[in-house]
């Protein structure tokens, strides 16, 4: 563990935020450095991850999926965590940090609602005030999560600007934070945003990959050929990838939202499309933008992947050639959602279905480790509507 927190990953990252937030980012970085070196903080978080979240999450050998694909497929079951996705790892860690910093109010953005639910859950547990910003289109298509957040005591603030999805929710949360910075901690839900957030979120999500690596070695006596994860902002993927970075023979594959297809222009695949880098929500990374530098709206059936930006560490891993990024379309994800449900009796989140789809395609790989980032109950209405 280094003595500082990365601000850059190669050229990517940085802190492109209004001046008002700069002291808060410095305070956050100092607090994180202190906390992560503090055995008591680590012990408190570990106990909650174990007894409250239910970690370690199982690594499950999906035999019927494997038979269909012609290789061994191992699923890292983040869907089995308390609250149903990997988001709780980060929400709990950051909320504990915020409490340690003396912040009484937590704000968050959410797309699919999983990060919102996880943050509302952590705030209920830690007795903190919670406000979650959510695009009105996402509120419509992820209704059960909205209800859960409100039951947990969070205020869900609808955001009606733009396409009314994740990008707008992040922008509005940042505006709130600019006004409330003294009393409030902003729990960003993915590995995006100004430094130190991408590094903090990665540090909190790497429990996925740390566990999975030990589990696959124990179960299979070898490392996987491929580690596959879906990428919206990129938090479950970076958490799964990072412990394998030094394993040169393990291919790391991130799966983005192909939406209506890359050629349609209606997708959420900035890493795959690999246009010029841009600044969105405080960090320089792969983004979807036009020639003028206006950020474009992403399009995906899955709310959690419906983001035109990406984590800066992913952009760097892509440029280094250490990880590669591909896109899976809405139709493909929907079909895989149903297929995985029928073959394994596991209803995956639509986001996770993107990663699962890739694992089922022809490949020279003999062993795939796929992060099943969340459960799909939240997606039932949307999937059934699609027919």
């Amino acid at each position, binding site marked *: 563990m280094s003595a500082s927190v990365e601000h850059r990953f190669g050229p990517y990252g940085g802190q492109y935020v*209004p*001046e*008002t937030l700069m002291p808060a980012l410095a305070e956050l970085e100092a607090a994180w450095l202190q906390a992560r070196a503090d055995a008591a903080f680590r012990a408190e978080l570990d106990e909650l991850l174990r007894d409250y979240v239910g970690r370690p999450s199982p690594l499950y050998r999906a035999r019927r999926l494997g038979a269909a694909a012609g290789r061994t497929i191992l699923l890292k079951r983040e869907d089995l965590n308390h609250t149903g996705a990997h988001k709780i790892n980060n929400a709990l860690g950051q909320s504990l940090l915020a409490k340690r910093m003396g912040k009484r109010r937590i704000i968050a953005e959410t797309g699919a609602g999983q990060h919102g639910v996880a943050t509302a859950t952590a705030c209920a547990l830690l007795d903190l005030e919670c406000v979650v910003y959510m695009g009105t289109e996402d509120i419509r298509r992820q209704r059960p999560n909205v209800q859960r957040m409100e039951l947990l005591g969070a205020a869900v603030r609808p955001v009606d600007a733009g396409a009314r999805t994740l990008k707008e929710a992040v922008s509005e949360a940042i505006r709130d934070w600019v*006004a409330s910075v003294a009393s409030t901690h902003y729990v960003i839900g993915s590995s995006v945003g100004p430094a130190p957030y991408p590094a903090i979120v990665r540090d909190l999500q790497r429990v996925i990959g740390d566990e999975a690596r030990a589990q696959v070695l124990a179960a299979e006596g070898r490392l996987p050929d491929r580690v596959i994860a879906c990428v919206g902002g990129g938090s479950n993927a970076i958490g799964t990838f990072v412990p394998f970075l030094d394993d040169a023979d393990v291919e790391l594959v991130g799966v983005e939202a192909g939406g209506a297809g890359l050629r349609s222009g209606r997708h959420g695949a900035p890493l795959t499309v690999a246009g010029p880098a*841009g*600044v969105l929500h405080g960090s*320089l990374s792969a983004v979807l933008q036009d020639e*003028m530098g*206006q950020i474009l709206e992403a399009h995906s059936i899955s709310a959690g992947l419906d983001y035109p930006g990406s984590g800066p560490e992913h952009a760097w891993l892509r440029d280094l050639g250490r990880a590669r990024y591909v896109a899976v379309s809405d139709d493909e994800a929907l079909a895989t959602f149903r297929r995985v449900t029928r073959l394994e009796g596991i209803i995956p989140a639509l986001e996770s279905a993107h990663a699962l789809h890739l694992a089922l395609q022809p490949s020279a790989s003999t062993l795939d480790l796929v992060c099943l980032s969340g459960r799909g109950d939240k997606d039932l209405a949307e999937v059934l509507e699609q027919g």
Partner: protein
Amino acid sequence: MPYLMGGFPDLDGSRRIGEAYADGGADLVELGVPFSDPLADGPVIQAAGTAALRAGATTAGVLEVGRALAARVPVVAMVYVNVLLARGAERFADDLAAHAISGLIVPDLPLEESDAVRAACDAAGVALVPLVAPATPDERLARIGAKARGFVYTVSLLGTTGERVALAEAFAAVVARAKAHAPVPVALGFGIGTPDQARQAADAGADGVIVGSRLVRAVAEAASTDAAVATVHELVAGFAGALR
């Protein structure tokens, strides 16, 4: 120092708004370039930016508006960093200079990220104006002040642009602190919506007072561009009068 959203309600309309500011006695005009995700702006300026983009505003078009206004009054462009980076810092600074725009404010470009942009601006003879906030500690104020060009834009309160009924208590304090650490003039902005508040800002020591949302709101609420021009002319004259 009134602010206008370039391209709102449309490019020519925004030029006329800027001319009305000059007619009303503005000492300097801040010209906003619309951006899809303006993190430092409240609802009024956000909406103006969205409308401007919808009406077909482009960076080139807004720069042309700047050139026209610069014939009457100094113009400082306000641009979010991604719009600047899309063009490239050197090219953007050169474009500003070519359009006789004398200053640049980038609300999401803090000191740590500003070296390349400042170098490009210095080379082009454009002043990169930094922002400081009430939350900025003294030692940071000193570092920012030391690299300031043109003036220091002091944000009056915590938050985004937008009129506030009562100004923050930290108001006079932030001006005093900025002046103590900046070798350049200090302008105060965010939340100033009435001539009375402008007067208070000047009395607190501000060398310049920036008014944005109040004026943009007037344009948004006007029935036509002609009406908007008349209203903002009157408003700016009111602010200028209070500051004399």
